[in-house]
């Protein structure tokens, strides 16, 4: 440590040159969700307590199917990135990486499961 030069210590610690990418992705997805979520709540919400047959008929229509699919994709991407920011604030070291990976995998899995279910209802 004592023999390390200042240059050596600073090397590799600099800007990753993509610092604004995460911020910009959150901005874009937040605007998408600001449009999607009100539509989704009023289209999807009432279905939670409908009969099996009514649910099948509902998601067979293009508008509810596309709206639900879009919401699943954008919401879970937005969640994945937002949760990452929280983890980076509160978790340190190796645990940080593991937690970020776990949350990312969970987000992808939930997204894929939702899309599969939606496709099998709709088609």
């Amino acid at each position, binding site marked *: 440590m004592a023999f390390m030069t200042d240059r050596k210590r600073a090397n590799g610690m600099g800007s990753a040159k993509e610092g604004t990418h995460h911020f910009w992705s959150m901005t874009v997805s937040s605007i998408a969700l600001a449009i999607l979520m009100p539509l989704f709540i009023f289209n999807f*919400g009432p279905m939670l307590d409908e009969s099996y047959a009514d649910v099948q008929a509902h998601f067979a229509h293009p508008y509810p199917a596309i709206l639900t699919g879009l919401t699943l994709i954008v919401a879970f991407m937005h969640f994945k990135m937002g949760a990452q920011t929280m983890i980076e604030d509160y978790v340190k070291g190796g645990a940080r990486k593991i937690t970020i990976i776990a949350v990312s995998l969970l987000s992808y899995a939930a997204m894929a499961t939702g899309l599969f279910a939606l496709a099998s209802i709709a088609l």
Partner: protein
Amino acid sequence: MADVNRGKRPLSPHLTIYRPQLTSMTSIFTRITGNAMLLAALMIVWWLLAAATGPGYYDLARTVITSWFGSLIMILSLWALWYHFCAGLRHLYWDTGRGFEIKQAERLGIMVIAGSFILTVLTLILI
């Protein structure tokens, strides 16, 4: 050089030293609501999967999600969603470089809180 006082530099005052303020509280609730919605999101994915599986499994998911406990999670998450929605709009407004004066920031905070409850009640009435 860079080794001077390494590891024992003075720290600026942090969270523990401040009295809770409208701005800081509405900020942390943006994070809490955003992350807490994961539970409702996973329940909705499960509900969709059940609806894709068959009538028997669907009835189970429907019963769980409309039980008192399921409804509690859904209604709290509905509020969380509207809160996060309003707080997100506030962030987009801040991103344009406006609304940072203390009076404006506090007014925005009140608008976020009021908006979240109004929108939640409105949604529950309309759905």
